[in-house]
């Protein structure tokens, strides 16, 4: 095992995949200088400007180019800087990338990855803070990944690059500096598999991305009262690991879904519905969700804090279900 941070883990994954497969290339604004957060620092030196491509500020152009290049025998990794900016390229992602394989009857695939950093981070306000993963889960043809740890950012990015379908890859900006153990040996992690981050009996908490860490801290607090909470990190949102979630809920009889995104029509709603449909007879409490209020993210720290998930909020939601 090596200790590295979430950002370095992603960079290692990309570099390894670029060494392994000459058709992999990355494109986005400022990548030659390392990217907005430094996720690409040093890669242009190794791979050159033709494979670490600096692009104009043309999100639609970047995504469209990736679609065309993916249909022409390469595996582009698109950097969108902030998931919010990817909204300038929704036609290219939703109407083009996600549909081409289907509407052309399987004549082509679109093996691209679009990295869309999500989440609240340093008072970035309404246009640099969103978590829009649910939008993409809704779109047939897309795979959606939201890693929470350095090991996952390493192993899942590798799999995303190897995937033959378009992958929306959502790293959380607040996790860049998070340190963790990453296997020293090269290896990819399977997409679509959840990880049980904490084993417990009284309640199943389903979460992903940065919210995982808040949930784990809150679960530790309940453990002081001998209430052991099971925490499942979904890791991939489409396809999501229904089996892992349903098996856990069958055993605990309670389910809480926690995400940073707006609660209304968030992906938690889908999970809650499926748990309700599949586990109704086994539930000892109504399924609950905890997400953000349906408010744009404000700038001022105390205002922003009202929207953020906190250990206190999650702990209260957990206790409300097991009390």
């Amino acid at each position, binding site marked *: 095992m090596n200790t590295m941070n979430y950002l370095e883990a992603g960079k290692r994954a990309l570099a390894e995949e670029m060494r392994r497969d000459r058709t992999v290339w990355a494109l986005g604004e400022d990548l030659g200088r390392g990217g907005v957060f430094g996720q690409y620092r040093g890669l242009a030196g190794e791979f050159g400007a033709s494979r670490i491509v600096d692009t104009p500020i043309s999100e639609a152009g970047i995504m469209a180019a990736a679609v065309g*290049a993916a249909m022409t025998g390469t595996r582009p990794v698109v950097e969108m800087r902030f998931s919010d900016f990817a909204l300038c390229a929704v036609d290219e992602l939703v109407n*083009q990338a996600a549909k081409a394989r289907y509407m052309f009857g399987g004549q082509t695939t679109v093996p691209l990855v679009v990295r869309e950093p999500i989440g609240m981070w340093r008072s970035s306000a309404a246009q640099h803070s969103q978590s829009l993963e649910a939008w993409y889960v809704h779109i047939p043809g897309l795979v959606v990944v939201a890693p929470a740890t350095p090991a996952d950012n390493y192993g899942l990015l590798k799999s995303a690059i190897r995937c033959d379908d378009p992958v929306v890859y959502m790293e959380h900006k607040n996790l860049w500096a998070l340190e963790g153990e990453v296997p020293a040996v090269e290896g990819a992690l399977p997409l679509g598999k959840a990880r049980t981050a904490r084993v417990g009996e009284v309640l199943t908490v389903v979460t992903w991305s940065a919210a995982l860490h808040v949930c784990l801290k809150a679960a530790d607090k309940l453990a002081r009262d001998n209430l052991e909470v099971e925490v499942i990190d979904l890791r991939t949102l489409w396809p999501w690991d229904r089996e892992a979630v349903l098996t856990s809920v069958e055993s605990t009889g309670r389910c809480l879904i926690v995400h940073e995104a707006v609660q209304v029509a968030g992906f938690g709603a889908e999970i809650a519905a499926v748990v309700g449909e599949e586990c109704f007879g086994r539930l000892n409490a109504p399924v609950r969700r905890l997400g953000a209020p349906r408010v744009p993210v404000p700038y001022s720290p105390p205002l922003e804090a009202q929207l953020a998930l906190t250990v206190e909020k999650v702990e209260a939601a957990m206790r409300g279900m097991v009390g």
Partner: protein
Amino acid sequence: MSIPNLDRERFRRHYHTMVAIRAFEEAALDALKQGLVHGAIHPSIGQEAVAAGVCGNLLERDLLLSTHRGHGHTLAKGADPTAMMCELLGRAGGTSHGKGGSMHIADFQVGMLGANGVVAANIGIAAGAAHALKLRGEDAMVCCLFGDGAINRGPFLEGLNWAAVYGLPVLFVCEDNGFAATTRTRELTAGPGPVARAESLGIRSLSVDGNDILAVDSAARDLMDVVRTAGGPRFLHVRTYRLTGHTGTDPAAYREESEVAEAWQNDPIARCRTLLTSVGDDDAMLDELAASARTLIDEVYRKARDAAWPAPELGFAHVQDLGDPRQRAY
């Protein structure tokens, strides 16, 4: 008009292609009337010289991206007309198993990477395909056709800029039929038009009479030569006229019948025939050539009408590998 050095074989081929495209679209309109075509179709009747003169000059290894009005382009690139007609009729044997229909016609076997239902969306995709060709060191180019309406969308700027900045082998072709859906494009377009916009990005451009097969063929071949050797994009503006409505059911009531009647006098197929007779081809031979194209399409139409419906499970295939709806649709 007399052009003693005309490559007659080439223009006979173009004539055959143009008549076949016309026959194909007339058959498609008939199929629409009979309820055999199920969604919208966008005929290119009157614009056949663009398809033949541009797409007919691409090599097999070259790539093509087209628009919702893409039957002619696709046929001229060499796609199988029977598979195309089956696609329009939503039948088994269609290029995309009947999953895309007219608006998303594609034939990757001949390098036709798809017509697009979103105006201008193919421009950036074409730039990306060319980017991949360059990365892989392939000796091929990309041709991207779009209408005059597309120049008012953002992807026009982003895609042209992209191709110019990275020096990519793309021929952009603005097929200007004067109408953006059902509105005259010039009423809603600032400035002098497509060529000025392309040239403002440093992309050398030509503008030609799109109903003159000789002019289109010559300009397209010249620009393709430059794209292949100089490596950067070029831009071709072809001025033509859409003789039918925007869709197969649009009566085009927004223009005078006299305008359309006059435009028929400029029919590119008739003009191509005049070109060939001017260099000595006789009518009987040209009649036979046209008849062979029409017979081919009659057969195509008959086969497509007789084709079976696609197997129902195909509706759930080709979505994605992970999260395949056949395993986990809900």
